[in-house]
């Protein structure tokens, strides 16, 4: 009787673990980026403040290229801007260090980051990152005193 109990409990535990794992992967797969493809603002600011360190190519795919040395593409939700981004990316090797950012709104409301990051994935880039601005450019970048364009 005890053995049956142990077997039943084991099956139950395995089922629960599998269920939890499935929900975690399902949640993660909702976004075109993975957790390790999110770049902390402090890390980008550190690189920008140290010209001797390798500099990534930074694209603004939102309303304004306010971050120092970033290239203004415009909101990536507009087809014309996405095309412009593609033209820029065509010139780069697939292992280029690329960072994209928007910062208009919280991630869940931003219409620009998904089409842009999806394009980088489709084009086969290997070292592309999304700047982690969960609130917006003001709170997560400007207010922290990180470098901006004049």
């Amino acid at each position, binding site marked *: 009787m005890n053995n049956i109990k142990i077997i039943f409990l084991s099956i139950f535990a395995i089922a629960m673990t599998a269920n939890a794992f499935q929900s975690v992967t399902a949640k993660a797969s909702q976004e075109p980026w993975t957790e390790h493809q999110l770049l902390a603002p402090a890390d980008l600011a550190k690189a920008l403040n140290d010209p001797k360190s390798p500099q990534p190519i930074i694209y603004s795919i939102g309303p*304004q290229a306010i971050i120092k040395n970033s290239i203004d593409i415009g909101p990536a939700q507009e087809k014309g801007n996405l095309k412009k981004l593609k033209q820029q990316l065509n010139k780069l090797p697939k292992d280029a260090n690329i960072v994209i950012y928007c910062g*208009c709104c919280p991630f869940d409301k931003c219409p620009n980051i998904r089409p842009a990051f999806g394009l980088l994935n489709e084009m086969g880039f290997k070292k592309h990152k999304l700047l982690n601005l969960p609130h917006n450019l003001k709170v997560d970048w400007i207010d922290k005193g990180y470098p901006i364009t004049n």
Partner: protein
Amino acid sequence: MKKIILIATILCLHLSLVFSQSQDLNIGTIAPDIRLPNLKGDTVTLSSLRGKIVLIDFWASWCAPCLKEQPKLAELYKKYKDSVFTVGKGFEIYGVSLDSKKTSWKSIIKKMNINWTQVSDLKFWVSPVTKKYNLQGLPFNVLIDGNGVIIAKNLHGVKLEQAIDKILI
């Protein structure tokens, strides 16, 4: 003893500083004045609207949730424009855009038929007004009475309508 007095003084100074900062946008205080140009380039001050109930609407053409609520604002504008309130006569919306490109700002105003006051310095998130009103995100709004006193902050949809309804005569 001297040490205690010194610590107490520092604490008092700190508290008064914190208090004075948080007072800025408190309900019941006067909303800081705003002086910004409209689409034509003419300066329109917030204080020039004294006497009316004013909704200061912070928004931008690139802010999807802001655009989503513009039809509701149009509805409220139409409904209360000529109403009489306990502390004010008439209702105006003072739209402050955080756009950076004039063409985007202008075209969205035209596209959405926005017919209330619109101002912007086109400085995006680095506009001084963001500091003055301690903006942390968009949309954000402040409702003020005819004397410029803050009645409510960051109310949207039905809650905003109820707040305006409350002060109708």
